[in-house]
């Protein structure tokens, strides 16, 4: 009986080693960034991108992530919006026994907002909800798709009536580190 358990445990460890999800990951993404809701009235959709880190937690189904991205939105006129969202997130892997890794994520952080022609900048709190899908493309690389909604929260400022609402989508490239 003991031998069987040891054998299963070893097999699980080996399986975990092969699963890229269980490795520390770093990567970047690139794709369309879309202002939605009230923000869509002021600026146009564009292309953006960013970098991210994913680290393991003590729970196999969860990872911690840190993301930073650059997002620049133009408008028909002279209005312009530049965002630097930097946020942490908790990612939960949906337990499916497929090579496809599907993760849901939620997080928060800060976003450095600059608007033109005002040339005004500041850090605002922000929240994020989203999901990622990825599959292994060899031992070191995962390729994935992501979609996330960012809420740049300004309603806590007295007199404010609008928040920033952005939907990011894109192709992600994950680099897997560790044995």
């Amino acid at each position, binding site marked *: 009986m003991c031998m069987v358990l040891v054998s299963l445990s070893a097999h699980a460890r080996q399986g975990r080693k092969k699963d890229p999800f269980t490795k520390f990951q770093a990567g970047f993404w690139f794709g369309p960034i879309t202002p939605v809701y009230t923000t869509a009235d002021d600026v146009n959709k564009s292309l953006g991108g960013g970098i991210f880190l994913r680290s393991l937690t003590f729970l196999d189904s969860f990872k911690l992530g840190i993301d930073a991205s650059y997002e620049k939105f133009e408008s028909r006129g002279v209005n312009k919006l530049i965002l630097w969202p930097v946020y942490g997130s908790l990612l939960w892997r949906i337990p499916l026994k497929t090579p496809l890794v599907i993760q849901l994520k939620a997080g928060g952080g800060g976003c450095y907002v600059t608007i033109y022609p005002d040339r*005004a900048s500041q850090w*605002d709190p922000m929240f994020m909800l989203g999901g990622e899908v990825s599959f292994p493309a060899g031992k070191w690389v995962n390729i994935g798709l992501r979609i996330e909604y960012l809420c740049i929260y300004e309603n806590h400022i007295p007199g404010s009536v609008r928040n920033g609402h952005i939907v990011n989508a894109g192709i992600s490239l994950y680099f897997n580190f560790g044995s």
Partner: protein
Amino acid sequence: MRVVVLLMIVFALGCGKKALFDELAENRLKVVIKGTYESNDPRSWLGAFPDDDSIDDGIANTELPTRLMLDIAEIQLLDKEGGVEPFSKYREVYTLDLNDSESFFSGMGIGHPNDDVEAGRLWTGMRLFLRKMVFDGAMQYHLIPGEPGIGTWTSDGKLYTIFDVDSVEGLDVNPLQVNTYYDSLKQNAKEINRIFPLKIPIIGGLNFNYANDETVLEIRLVFKNFVKRYEYDFVRDGYHYIYRYFGPSDWLRDVVADDAVIGGNIIAVARSYVRGKTVDITNAHTTGITVVANSYVAAVGPDSLCASLNRPSVVRPTLRTSGTPPAQCDNPKGPHVPIPNDIESYLDYYLKYEKYKENYNLFAACVSDGSFSTLWDEYNDSRNAYLLPAVATWTSDGSFTLKNVPYNSSWKICHRQTSPGAGDLPEFTDNAGDFVVVTIDGGGNVAISP
């Protein structure tokens, strides 16, 4: 606990900040466009649309315009260094009834979409891109053969044009406003475009500051009581056609018979003021002049002449018919082609052609001695220098209010008793009793200068 700390950090990021997304969505700069000479309380429509002296063919027609249609593609701001800010890249179409309750003509003005602009720069002018300008009431006529001599003019009905996708009654007069007549005499006439864009000076400039809640940029295009009927001649399939159409008065740049273009007569000006930092100048502030009923009151810079608001004294050079050396000269226009199949009409044409050749010889002499370019340059320069008043109003009973005159400014308030007819602008004098200089300080106090 960690979550609470994290949230505290997150919210701390927003402390003492501005609502940037509100700033992005809302404008502190408001553009208002008015179709009046007056900046407030304009004179009522006179209901008169005089015939221009370009009308020399055809029959009398009684069609009158009832509306003006404007298609504005974009507005740009210009600074002194030549910098351009496309702060209003919003195409808008306006159909404006020619009556006193229409905001465009009532003195209230119509709001035009725009973005805020960069602060700390002095914007001194703007470019207004007018795609179309249509007055309804335009008619077409043609000369039918078969009659001896001049023939008979017959109506072909109303003219129609495309405006905002739809076919509408009227004629787009923009193509005729690309050039002034002066421009059409130049070799590079095709490179000149006075309507797309139309350049408009901002008197006093626009110095935008985000610290002010609302800054108004007021643009005035003179249309009210400033519309005339014109005639445009052309030949098609051997027949002589004319359009009878309506356009801005040729008060500034005279249009004569058989001129193909009417450009340079959209008289426009802009100014800016900060809401809450203005005063209203009234009779009480202008003791020293007696304002009578049915007259204009206008403001110019303190060092300017009231007479600078008048039509420049230089007159359009005309064909020299006598005298040497030539004092006046204009390019003579050839006669129209005759009515087909009418021998008398052909004879009439050749007689006119002989007269045309004689006139052309006179004109050639005028060109040879350099008078032609000198006189026309002088005429054009005088017109280019013309400026509308920054602020103006009409009074029907002698009491007046010049609204929204900005703080920290000084003005010569001009008044003249005579009131112009339709198609004309008021003219002022600098005689004692016709003007007074007022100065407004930073607190809104008005002082009359001795």
